[in-house]
């Protein structure tokens, strides 16, 4: 037990950042890390706290879960704040009475909201705005309130006012200073901001000092101001700034700054060499910092210092950009022109209600800072001019004006930035790092770039810049790098499709031998399997195809996080008989499966081990069910509303058409999954415009929409043809789907395919409706072959004992997979998390396979 004890007090954003950094640097292996936090939940995103009122719940704001900390090997003590530090004995005492010994102590206690010393500030319905619990209390009070007052017109105050608006209250903002956001914008910016915010229905009261809050006879609250005026309201939110939480440190005798905060040096070390302080509670150079970026930097510095690496805090970037009540505000660098000799250019647009100000160096060549109100779209690029000292050229005023239509963009483009340019100041990521990661890891999607570089995951203000960098890198890659499927085939998917079709190739083995090299991989094998299936529609588990399939296709079920599978029988158009419902329930019960209704109007049954799948499907096939192809890049469902069958508004039989379409295209393998829907009237209850193909009934027939997408990047489907009859819907869909299947890239949904298709929907319409390429008959014939060779893959599988033998957990044993462990939850079961498995293992209640070290 030579591991040192590292105790962290506080589990807010900065405390969490310290822990992730510490884990990455291996400190968790060399130290026993214990965290105690006051709040009942692990760290969450306080910067975006207001999103709690826009539908995000506590889980969506969470930065970490208890399980994740557990997996990192960090001991987390929630709801158990530290109450005292005994520096002589090197111990921390917590509220629950626990004593934590430390070798190193990190204070990340954050700050508390400052509540002005006004009589009545503790009345019921007076709140602060800092934690999820505060927001829950405000939400509950707002349910019985009509109006609310925020005291404080700074950044947080306007956030709180936005929250009151979204809770449906008449909102007021009371600010002591003569303008809003006095720390970030000047008088002109404040005026534009006020103008915009009042236009949103928030009443702004400036230059008002609150002298008392009293309770009226009717139970509401009344604010009295120094100028004699009064304001009646139902609830009050104090948001008048924050104060460092330094009381623990103060009581322990650590040095405290004149204006509060625990005094630290550039390595964030306090006056006690074994104690560090980071984030809002720390006072560095006599200042405390209420922004997340400096806090993150401090967290990194301490983690690196403890890991024996060199690190120190430099100057912090105090730039801010936010959207308050839908109003953009940005303030960066030397926004108030404090640098000697600085010159200012500004743009005040009273019509568009936009204010922009640039602060230039005395020689007018460099941008020192600026502020943006009403339109902060150029924030990230302007900020990078400041951070990187880029020459602004002879006409810096051009940076203030948005690019004119059709003209060359006058703003700074990402390509002008040097590789050293700091893009994400929260996580200290440069342009060079981002571009290298995109290139080396072949990233193509923004979320992946954010995940791999962390850029854009702090305050989020640089996300557009990161997206631009990705775009530029992809354009560059498109020019210099080939778009070959993978290292095994010097062809695009479209070219391979053509080769397979024209040369009549029926196996992967032949294709790679004649047109590729090597043995293939997890990219080309499933892609070629899909091409072969779209063209020849062979049974996908034939000996020569089985090894090409992704695990879902190979076992005709959907793999879950613990390696078990889920099973989804087809419920075409979502129409199901009572007997079928009973059968599904009976089968799920018999095989011990967890059940859930899917978004595609079907029933998903989870928790099947490999060797259970054939028995489950034997029962399903006996009950008249067939494969739902939920496992395949294939047609999934055609959702429907009940339409004219029952609905008083329905104008066509939407269920009937959805059944026809689902049964026609079921089993069709495509570059990605395909979803369809049919709505019986314009009310669109089947959400057809969110699908790859959607049909909406009209008085005169049907409108056909294509290329919609839900999921990560929702996109509405676009109209392909209007008021056509059902047979024409089918004919157009035959052509459209086959055209997409032939020409799309691997894993490209119809929406992305359309976005990248030259000519867009007009081109698709020419090909599908006008037959401009003269291939309509061929496309229809290809589709007819697929339709005519449909088979239920599960039925085929069950008929062949050799295929059934593939569904074994072990090739040498009939033992059920012992690594599959379930726990009860909400009257069903789910796979145990790793930490739960470990606990059960220690209690001797399960036998897990040996886990490699």
């Amino acid at each position, binding site marked *: 037990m030579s591991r040192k004890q590292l105790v962290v007090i506080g589990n807010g954003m900065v405390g969490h950042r310290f822990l992730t950094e510490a884990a990455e640097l291996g400190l968790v292996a060399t130290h026993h890390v214990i965290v105690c936090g006051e709040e009942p939940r692990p760290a969450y995103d306080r910067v975006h706290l207001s999103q709690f009122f826009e539908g995000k719940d506590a889980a969506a704001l969470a930065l970490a879960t208890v399980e994740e900390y557990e997996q990192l090997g960090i001991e987390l003590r929630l709801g158990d704040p530290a109450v005292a530090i005994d520096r002589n004995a090197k111990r921390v005492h917590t509220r629950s009475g626990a004593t934590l010994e430390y070798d190193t102590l990190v204070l990340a206690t954050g700050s508390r909201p400052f509540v002005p010393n006004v009589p009545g500030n503790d009345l019921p319905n007076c709140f602060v705005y800092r934690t999820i619990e505060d927001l829950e209390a405000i939400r509950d009070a707002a349910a019985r309130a009509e109006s609310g007052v925020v005291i404080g017109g700074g950044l947080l105050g306007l956030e709180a006012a936005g929250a009151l608006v979204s809770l449906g209250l008449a909102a007021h903002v009371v600010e002591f200073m003569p303008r809003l956001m006095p720390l970030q914008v000047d008088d002109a910016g404040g005026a534009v901001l006020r103008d915009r915010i009042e236009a949103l229905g928030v009443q702004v009261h400036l230059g008002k000092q609150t002298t008392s809050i009293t309770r009226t006879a009717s139970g509401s609250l009344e604010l009295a101001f120094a100028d004699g005026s009064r304001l009646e309201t139902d609830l009050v939110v104090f948001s008048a700034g924050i104060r460092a939480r330094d009381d623990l440190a103060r009581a322990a005798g650590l040095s405290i700054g004149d204006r509060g905060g625990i005094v630290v040096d550039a390595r964030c070390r306090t006056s006690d060499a074994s104690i560090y302080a980071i984030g809002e509670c720390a006072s560095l150079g006599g200042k405390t910092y209420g922004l997340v970026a400096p806090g993150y930097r401090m967290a990194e510095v301490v983690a690196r210092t403890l890991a024996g690496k060199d690190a120190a805090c430099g100057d912090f970037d105090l730039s801010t950009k936010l959207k308050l009540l839908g109003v953009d505000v940005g303030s960066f660098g030397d926004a108030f022109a404090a640098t000697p000799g600085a010159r200012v250019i500004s743009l005040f647009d009273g019509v568009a209600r936009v204010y922009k100000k640039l602060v230039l160096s005395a020689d007018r060549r460099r941008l020192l800072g600026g502020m943006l109100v009403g339109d902060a779209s150029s924030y990230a690029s302007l900020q990078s001019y400041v951070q990187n000292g880029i020459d602004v050229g002879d006409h810096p005023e051009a940076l203030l004006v948005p690019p004119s239509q059709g003209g060359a963009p006058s703003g700074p483009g990402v390509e002008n930035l040097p590789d050293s340019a700091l893009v994400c100041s929260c996580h200290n990521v440069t342009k060079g790092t981002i571009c290298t990661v995109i290139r080396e890891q072949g990233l193509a999607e923004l979320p992946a770039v954010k995940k791999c570089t962390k850029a854009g995951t702090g305050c989020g203000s640089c996300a557009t810049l990161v997206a631009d960098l990705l775009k530029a890198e992809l354009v560059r890659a498109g020019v210099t790098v080939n778009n070959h499927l993978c290292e095994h085939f010097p062809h695009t998917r479209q070219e391979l499709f053509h080769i397979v079709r024209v040369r009549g190739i029926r196996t992967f083995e032949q294709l790679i031998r004649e047109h590729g090299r090597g*043995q293939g*991989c997890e990219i080309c094998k499933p892609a070629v399997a899909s091409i072969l299936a779209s063209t020849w529609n062979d049974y996908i588990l034939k000996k020569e195809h089985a090894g090409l399939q992704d695990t879902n296709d190979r076992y005709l079920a959907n793999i879950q996080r613990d390696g078990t599978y889920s099973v989804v029988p087809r419920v075409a158009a979502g129409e199901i008989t009572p007997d079928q419902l009973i059968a599904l329930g009976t089968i799920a019960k018999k095989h011990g499966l967890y059940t859930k209704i899917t978004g595609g109007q079907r029933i998903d049954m989870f928790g099947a081990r490999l060797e259970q799948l054939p028995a489950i499907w034997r029962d399903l096939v006996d009950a008249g069910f067939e494969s739902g192809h939920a496992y395949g890049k294939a047609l999934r469902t055609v959702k429907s509303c009940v339409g004219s069958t029952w609905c008083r508004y329905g104008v066509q039989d939407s269920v009937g058409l959805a059944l026809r379409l689902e049964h026609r295209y079921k089993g069709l393998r495509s570059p990605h999954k395909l979803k369809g829907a049919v709505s019986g009237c314009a009310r669109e209850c089947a959400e057809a415009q969110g699908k790859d193909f959607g049909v909406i009934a009209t008085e005169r027939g049907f409108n056909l929409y294509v290329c919609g997408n839900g999921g990560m990047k929702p996109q509405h489907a676009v109209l392909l043809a209007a008021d056509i009859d059902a047979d024409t819907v089918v004919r157009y869909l035959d052509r459209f789907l086959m055209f997409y299947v032939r020409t799309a890239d691997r894993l490209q949904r119809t929406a992305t395919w359309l976005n990248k298709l030259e000519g867009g929907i007009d081109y698709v319409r020419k090909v599908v409706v006008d037959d401009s390429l003269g291939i309509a008959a061929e496309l229809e014939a290809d589709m007819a072959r697929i339709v005519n060779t449909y088979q239920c893959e599960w039925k085929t599988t069950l008929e062949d004992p050799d295929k059934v033998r593939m569904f074994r957990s072990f*090739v040498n044993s009939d*033992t059920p997979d012992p690594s599959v462990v379930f726990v009860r939850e909400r009257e069903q079961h789910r796979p145990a998390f790793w930490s739960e498995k470990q606990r059960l293992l220690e209690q001797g209640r399960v036998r897990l396979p040996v886990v*490699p070290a």
Partner: protein
Amino acid sequence: MLATNDSRSEAKNEACGLEPGESKELVWIDVCAMDDVLPGAGAAALIEGEQIALVRTMDGVLYAISNFDPFSRAFVIARGIVGDRGGVPKIASPIYKQSFDLRTGVCLDDSNVRLPVYPVRVVAGRVQVCPVPRRVA
């Protein structure tokens, strides 16, 4: 690593990364028929409490690697897709698609991660595995 055609045992031991003559100390366990593992595919085996993935490449070479996917912590490696990267024989986890070098167990996407690999041979059409991980230099 072993060629599946029955070659001389000396050569086999060399291919296993073993010293010549060390084979006497290895305990070989009979697992299944060679035909139970399809070319270009994997199959999981339960051997003395350990889950081991038997993997056969398209060119007929048989490997034994842990069935544990350290990224998802599920025992699923055998259900991955077999192939090569730049000529290195590999299998990709079916959960998050990280690839592992079948010869050494080293993760090709994160060189800090390595799966145990095991000696494996084919005798008279039967696959035999020694469930003690090989030392890999």
